[in-house]
């Protein structure tokens, strides 16, 4: 029972960040119909900003306050960079899978190089924001992980409400489902695409900023999350928000359970086998739509 609870706790801890990261990627694909291979760089940038700025903030202030300031600064920086990249590059390649692929792969090299130059390649750990451990049903978890999970849940819920209840959300969903019909309803596609892109990269930044206190950060850290995010959105369904949530938790469960009973390499192989099976049997994923 204790072991089961521990594996479940591991799944939720890992899944919380995966879901946030994959939500951004799937939102961008849904609205812009581009696959942003540089999504991991926005994750890395935010995490690096948090890791680099935390030691510079006043030690007299509580750690959680410094962390919130660093988190806000990181997301602001990611949003500004995202806006610049959109205007210079992605705006010209909306709904162009090949063009956007080449652009985003180039961006990976450019952003990685710049980040390595500025932040160095050495791993940067972040001091604990809150200390102490919590035991739930025999599963041991740090208070910090619990806080990060709560924040991830809060932001995922917030995104869900924005997409379901606000005019912006409805416009994003409309553009995602049928661009022409959305435009006929007066939705300005380019503007909505920009908003979708900014929300998407900010989600990547948020995931990175939340991850920073949990793992040493270096410029290449986003690559692992990008691979997982592709698995998540293929399994969950390209462009589907609920699919990203279900897919994120499923991938985390595979990593946690397979990682324990076999090893992490087998877990990764299993994930790829799952992706192949979905592409062959149900290419629209668990919750995606069939495009005709």
């Amino acid at each position, binding site marked *: 029972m204790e072991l089961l609870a521990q594996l479940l706790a591991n799944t939720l801890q*890992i899944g919380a960040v995966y879901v946030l990261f994959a939500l951004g990627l799937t939102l961008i694909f849904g609205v812009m119909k581009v696959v942003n291979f540089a999504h991991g760089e926005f994750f890395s940038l935010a995490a690096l900003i948090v890791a680099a700025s935390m030691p510079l903030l006043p030690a007299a202030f509580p750690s959680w306050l410094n962390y919130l300031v660093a988190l806000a600064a990181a997301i602001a920086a990611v949003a500004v960079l995202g806006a610049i990249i959109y205007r210079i590059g992605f705006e010209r390649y909306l709904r162009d899978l090949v063009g956007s692929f080449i652009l985003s792969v180039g961006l990976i090299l450019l952003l990685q190089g710049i980040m390595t130059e500025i932040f*160095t390649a*050495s*791993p940067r*750990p972040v001091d604990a924001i809150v200390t102490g451990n919590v035991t739930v049903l025999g599963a*041991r978890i740090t208070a910090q992980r619990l806080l990060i999970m709560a924040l991830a849940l809060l932001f995922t819920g917030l995104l869900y409400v924005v997409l379901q209840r606000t005019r912006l959300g409805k416009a994003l969903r409309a553009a995602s489902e049928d661009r022409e019909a959305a435009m006929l309803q007066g939705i300005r596609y380019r503007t909505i695409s920009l908003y979708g892109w900014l929300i998407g990269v900010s989600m990547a930044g948020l995931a990175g900023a939340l991850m920073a206190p949990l793992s040493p950060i270096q410029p*290449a850290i986003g690559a*692992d999350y990008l691979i997982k995010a592709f698995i998540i959105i293929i399994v969950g369904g390209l462009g589907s928000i609920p699919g990203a949530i279900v897919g994120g938790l499923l991938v985390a469960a595979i990593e946690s359970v397979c990682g324990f009973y076999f090893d992490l390499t087998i*877990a*990764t192989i299993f994930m790829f086998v799952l992706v192949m099976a979905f592409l062959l049997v149900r290419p629209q994923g668990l919750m995606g739509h069939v495009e005709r």
Partner: protein
Amino acid sequence: MKRAAVVGGALALMLGATASRAQDTIIFGVSVPLSGAAASWGIGTDWAAQQAAKDINAAGGIKMGGKSYKVEVRSVDNKYTAGDGAKTAETLISRDKVKIFTQSVGTAPVKAIQSLTERENVLLFTSAWGRTVKGKDFPLTFTIINTPDEVLKPIYSTVKQRHAQAKTVVLLNPNDASGQDTAKDSRRFWEELGIKVVGSHFFERSTTEFQPIATKIAADKSDILDMSATPPANAGSILKELSVLGWKGVKVIGAGTGADVLVRTAGADADGTYMGLAADFDGPSATPKQRELNAGAKKALNESLNVIHMGGYDGVMAAKAGIEAAGAIDAKKIAEVLPKTIFDISYGKTTFGSKDIYGTPQQMLIPIVVTQIQGGKAVEVVRILPDELKKRLGQ
């Protein structure tokens, strides 16, 4: 006509300049990861190699055939992969006409590089940890840091002596050539000491979430955890997760470099960890040169040097000694004279040896230092100067 003459003159000048530069400069190659997760090893190594070139040039260069040659070091990114390792070998050998690689990092890329260097009569210095990179099949390859056969026995013996009640060990390594090779060596040495290996696990180098592996290690209930070739940042994350799970065993990183990264990542959970390659280049046992290099690296790169970085400096010094002793830049001649030559590196005087272990004298003889993290600092607990080196130096 006039324009053609000017262009022709300029070309002649350029060619002349290139030719004279080629005559006066020896180019050394360095194949290290400069991007990706292992980039910190490569960036520090490149920096240390450039310092060695500066030191040699400031002292008048390399003397060969009555003439002095300047040294230039060119570092190329092998991304810690076999594919890119092969590309770096191709680039440095074909484009830059490099005859000596003064440092190469990563067992997988080094194995790829060897397939070219051994065939093309190019000398290869490496910090590749795997035993399979040297021996009679690779006569032109020399290791310039301590490897499992030098390090693991002393560190494991120290652990056994200090924790006599420990009877079982679990191994954890990255899932690549370095990790696989190390796991075999670790198992052999632990079993020789009578410690039972109850588990041997692997993880991908890109892993960022270590709870599953920590849960698995905790479930193994071993007395000792040996994270052999696990990089310090990953080891720190694992120690943090294990602490949450209440695991309290003896912590060992056989090939552990970078004590400061381990401490920064794991905090107090790093305390008590034994490390095999975490020599403190700021400490009292470091040589003045090592202290100077470490201070320079802290200023330039904002981080301390580790054993692999220091190999960047020592490889260039070994190449200089080899060329001067052989009187030529010929890999076979240098490989022949190097084990007979005593020369200076950052640790002091050294040579190549360990023929009794590898069948050929291809291992640089340098001090073996076992450290333990105590109060957030790496404290030296055992320092062994190889017997062979003592004998050669007449000590």
